[in-house]
């Protein structure tokens, strides 16, 4: 049971809405796919753009992700995880696969605001969620946040991180494990 599963929590409400869309998509409801797309495309496209750094690649990956959602919605099992986790994990994985297969390591580890892309204004509910998630990220030790962000957004493996950060492999693994534990406690299921 997600730790945030309490009435009135904007993440709970958003999760319920998205889960509803995915259920309807599983029943081949195209309007539901459109609704999920409308609610999430800024996150998915933004993620793809941040990882790939190229609008054309980001568009293709975004299309692939929602096509995969359409084709695999029936495999989503809400007892095994949230719709947000299902969608975001799928999206990140697709974008990182594309990045790795292109052989182009991003040299542009920079925020979306620097990618010359119009930043979308989030809906009020998502603004609250963003603040909550930002607070959880800020609660990480800076070295934990750095290691997690480089791995999550730019596909660095632990050994690449160790080389890049000039730290022993064991230190890098510990930073990631401890940071991920904190995120899990604050944003997800309890440890």
């Amino acid at each position, binding site marked *: 049971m997600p730790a945030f599963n309490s009435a009135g929590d904007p993440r709970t409400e958003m999760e319920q809405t998205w889960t509803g869309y995915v259920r309807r998509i599983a029943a081949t409801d195209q309007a539901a796919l459109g609704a999920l797309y409308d609610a999430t*495309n800024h996150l998915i496209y933004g993620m793809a753009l941040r990882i790939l750094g190229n609008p054309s690649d980001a568009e293709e990956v975004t299309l692939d992700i929602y096509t995969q959602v359409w084709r695999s919605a029936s495999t989503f099992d809400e007892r095994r995880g949230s719709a947000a986790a299902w969608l975001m*994990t799928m999206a990140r994985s697709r974008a990182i696969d594309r990045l790795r297969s292109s052989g182009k390591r991003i040299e542009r580890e920079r925020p979306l605001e620097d990618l010359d892309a119009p930043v979308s204004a989030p809906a009020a509910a998502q603004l609250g969620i963003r603040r909550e998630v930002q607070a959880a990220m800020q609660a990480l030790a800076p070295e934990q946040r750095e290691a997690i962000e480089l791995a999550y957004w730019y596909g660095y493996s632990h050994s690449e991180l160790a080389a890049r950060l000039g730290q022993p492999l064991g230190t890098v693994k510990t930073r990631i494990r401890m940071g991920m534990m904190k995120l899990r406690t604050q944003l997800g299921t309890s440890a």
Partner: protein
Amino acid sequence: MTEHHKFNNEIRERASLFVAGALPPDEQAKFSQHTKSCGVCAEEARAFEEGASWMPLASHGVAAPPHLRDKLLARIQEPDPPPGIQVIARGRGRLPETLDFNRDQTVCLLYVPTTARRGDHRLIIPFIFADPALSPCLCGGRGPGRAGMHAA
């Protein structure tokens, strides 16, 4: 990797690295496969995913270009590929310079040239055939690691 019956700290570390995307690609794929048969690791990975999956919401989003929605709704009208066939790319425009596929697989690119512009092709369906026997065309793309072009 054998199925685990009991939780331990190594599982926790591996699952956290997996969800952060910090395992090397081959280990990432192995662990992903492992979670399909190991409930202990799957549950640990799921718990980390529930936290990490919110990370994208900490950043500013970027709205996708308006035409993408129509493109998506058109794409889902297309029939699913036959079983055993994986569509690795499709679209309109020039053929991609490179396509990522496994050396053990057979690739077939099916495209239709247009007269709109020289060198501009409508790429219909590039197929990867996990099983060459499933190939519905006779483009010469049969055999592991071989690519074939089918111009219609």
